[in-house]
């Protein structure tokens, strides 16, 4: 493993306990320079607490954090110059214009981008003189990322950057992240969108109850499922689990509301067998869909719960 000083982010045994919940409970994380790393998990998994500790905005109860080989104790100002942050729900001042906001943020840094140029890069130049209060959700979020980028950071922290955005705004934001990475920047982002994590991240840590429960590249994580295909079906009445336990290439199942989710090696083999099993039991099949396994399925397989409402 690379030495902590060479890593963009290194944290070991991170703990943060609140009176009623262990938000972070012994979490390890190592992010290489130039990497895009995703923290994936349901709401309340401890993603925001973790990222805010890494950003130096929250004090851990235990553990060791190093950012760019520096510590928040004693090197805070230097670190602040070198990281850019987009918080989950900051409302920038509505009475200022886009350009005024960015100039204000630029003034906090010793070095940085030209506000005008950055607005062009983020396709916000047409809105330069618009008040922040008049921007759409996607434009506000891009401005928030612009404020994170204005100091020319080495690491960009994004906490749920696309939550609540329309598809086009999400694409635009992903594009911004891709360009930041193209010039060698490191990104740490949290999300509960699987597709976002698969699309943007080199590596992903799946977080639940304040711990990392799976870590790796999106492909490797999905491969962990062993079975690349998912069958999801509902029937009337509901089928017992023993009915499909003997399917060929069957690797496991999970309940999703009324539906069963089966992980299998081959759809061509498993689907006919499943239908046969259903018919032989005088049960009526109501719906049946199949898809390739995703991170979402991995999360369900790992925890028995769904990401979005876990």
């Amino acid at each position, binding site marked *: 493993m690379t030495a902590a000083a060479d890593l963009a982010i290194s944290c070991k045994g991170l703990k943060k306990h609140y009176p009623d919940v262990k938000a972070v409970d012994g979490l390890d994380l190592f992010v290489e320079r130039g990497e895009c790393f995703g923290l994936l998990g349901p709401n309340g998994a401890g993603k925001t607490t973790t990222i805010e500790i890494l*950003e*130096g*905005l929250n004090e851990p109860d235990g553990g060791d954090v190093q950012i760019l080989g520096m510590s928040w104790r004693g090197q805070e*100002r230097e670190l*602040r*110059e070198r990281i850019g*942050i987009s*918080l989950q*729900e*900051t*409302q*920038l*001042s509505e*009475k*200022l214009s886009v350009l*005024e906001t960015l*100039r*204000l*943020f*630029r*003034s*906090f*840094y*010793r070095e*940085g981008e*030209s506000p*005008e*140029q950055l607005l062009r890069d983020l396709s916000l130049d047409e809105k330069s003189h618009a*008040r922040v209060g008049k921007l759409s959700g996607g434009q506000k979020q891009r401005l928030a990322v612009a*404020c994170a980028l204005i*100091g020319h950071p080495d690491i960009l922290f994004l906490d749920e950057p696309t939550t609540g955005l329309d598809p086009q705004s999400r694409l635009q934001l992903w594009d911004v992240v891709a360009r930041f990475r193209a010039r060698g920047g490191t990104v740490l982002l949290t999300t509960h969108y699987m597709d976002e994590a698969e699309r943007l991240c080199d590596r992903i840590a799946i977080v639940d109850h304040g711990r990392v429960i799976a870590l790796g590249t999106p492909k490797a994580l999905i491969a962990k499922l062993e079975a690349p295909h998912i069958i999801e079906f509902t029937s009337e009445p509901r089928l017992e689990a023993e009915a499909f336990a003997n399917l060929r290439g069957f690797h496991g199942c999970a309940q999703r509301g009324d539906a069963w989710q089966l992980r299998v090696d081959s759809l061509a083999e498993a689907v006919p067998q499943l239908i046969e099993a259903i018919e032989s039991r005088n049960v009526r099949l109501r719906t049946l869909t199949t898809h390739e396994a995703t991170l979402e399925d991995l999360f369900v397989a790992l925890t028995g719960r769904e990401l979005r409402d876990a």
Partner: protein
Amino acid sequence: MPEVRPALVELTIARLKEFIRETEAIFWVFGFPLLLTLALGFAFREKPPDRIPVGIAAGPNAQARLAALQKSPVLLPRILNEAAAREELRRGKISLLVEEGAQPVYRFDATRPESRSARSEVDDALQSASGRKNVFAAKELHVAEQGSRYVDFLVPGLLGMNLMGTGMWGVGFSVVNARLKKLLKRLVATPMRKSDYLIAQFVSRLVFLVIEVGVVLLFAWLVFDVRVRGSLALFALISIVGGVSFACVGLLVASRARTVEAVSGMMNLTMMPMWLCSGVFFSYERFPDAAKPFIRALPLTALNDALRGVMNDGLSIVQVAPQLANLLIWGVVSYAIALKIFRWQ
């Protein structure tokens, strides 16, 4: 590319722009005190002194005497029958009674100043009516002593109250709002110096303070001829020290509040006793002596006393030093505590 201005400058400009673009705030800061000055100034404007009521006993001479006395600009004569007239004199409803008879008889209480002036006015009027020629006609010059009218008392009080209100609200509201929107948290996530943020709040207050005080002073001068007797520079200094002190108190009140409702309540709780006790609309001399040391310790009392002293009595900086010291102590102590307990997230 334009050069990058220092963070303190950018923060101050941002704060000023935010304020100017808040239309309602402009009214409360500038319009409200003007309206208050105008309304109260007119309500309590100086009226000519009341005429002195005198009685004339009914009888053959009564009508002639009534006509004579009505020519006097300071008398309010009435004809009454003897018994009723005596009763009214006893109860002080008239100051003097001219009794019937060829030679007038003046009945009055010689210990009452108003009755004594009634006697000389009545005598003058009756003597002239009977043909007395004045040796000369003296010209009268009426003096309305500047600085002694109610509006002179009111204007510095309103200025003090306004400096308190805008100082506390201007800083307190914007800080709590920024905290509520997590803007404070976002700002401390940058290399920004926290002191720059707080100082920018004060500097932007100063800019408005100059306009705010200037507008009210100019208005009071144009409409009511209210003037600053003492040094204008000293008056400005007191305004600035007062304004910044209250901005510090506002910062303290807002240092931990998480909601606008909470900070509003605390602001009102802080300001209410000062509105009532610190001599904005009436002098605190009317409060019991035991309460006065506490009232004088309040920052608004100090500010009002100093402003009033310089404006109406032309006091010097040495004479208002205790009030300035009071304001400085309130400001410095509030700022120190606020900085210590300030909640950035």
